[in-house]
């Protein structure tokens, strides 16, 4: 997705109104991404501020071929990766893979199918449990999941900001979602309280 020519020009000229609009529009999402990447609240705010400054200092380079959000997420995540280089890449194997594989027999059919009947997304209790489960997901998987599900980035945008291939992105999403699913199932949520809506 591209930026409009007017907005691209406004960013390149560092028009104060356009810059304010960019900050307003992207601040919440960037903060969520920084927190999903594992930064503490203060560190997340500093990283987001730094990302905006880097982006606006290099505003003349912005060509509008990608949304400015893609640039901002990319800058933010490079900053985070540089500060924690040792965790910048996902492990080639992950124990969640074995957990998922153990649910299937040699013929590829379920031997341990999903247990809970349905999760009522309207129940605040289940969402609170999901929040707890999210804390157990490795940073890079949580980041991919958050950018996809909460921020709505496309596959192309995600591959660019995370610097991964589409296949690697699929692995990150597969592992994060299955880790969350297994975690919620392990908490024994049943459908008995489905009527308790928040």
């Amino acid at each position, binding site marked *: 997705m591209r930026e409009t020519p007017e907005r691209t020009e406004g960013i390149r*000229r560092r028009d104060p109104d356009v810059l304010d609009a960019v900050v307003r529009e992207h601040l919440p999402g960037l903060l969520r991404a920084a927190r999903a990447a594992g930064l503490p609240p203060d560190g997340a705010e500093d990283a987001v501020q730094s990302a905006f400054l880097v982006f606006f200092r290099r*505003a003349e380079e912005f060509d509008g071929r990608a949304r400015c959000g893609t640039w901002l997420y990319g800058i933010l995540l490079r900053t985070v990766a540089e500060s924690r280089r040792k965790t910048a890449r996902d492990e080639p194997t992950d124990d969640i893979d074995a957990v998922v594989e153990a649910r299937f027999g040699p013929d590829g059919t379920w031997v341990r199918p999903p247990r809970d009947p349905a999760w009522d997304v309207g129940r605040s209790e289940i969402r609170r449990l999901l929040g707890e489960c999210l804390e157990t997901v490795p940073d890079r998987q949580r980041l991919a999941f958050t950018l996809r599900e909460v921020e709505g980035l496309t596959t192309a945008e995600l591959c660019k900001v995370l610097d991964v291939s589409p296949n690697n992105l699929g692995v990150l999403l597969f592992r994060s979602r299955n880790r969350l699913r297994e975690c919620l199932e392990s908490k024994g949520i049943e459908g008995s309280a489905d009527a308790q809506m928040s």
Partner: protein
Amino acid sequence: MLRCHDVTRLVASDGLAALGPGVRFRVWLHARMCRHCRRYGRQIRAIGEMARRLAYEDEAGVTFAPLAARIRAALTDIRPSTTEETP
């Protein structure tokens, strides 16, 4: 013939979008016949929906104004563009 193992991998990795309509139809057909894969797909979708709600709930009482003001203050020395200033 698609197996449950293949279907769950495609669903959870967002792999369906990259496939042709024929394979997507086979996945849909498999899910129609397999209640376990149907349940798995619903749970994966529910996790995404809950994460979206959770993110916005957590921010319900949060104001971004102080940080936005801090960023605007830090930007004052780099705007407006030098192209409009004296060379």
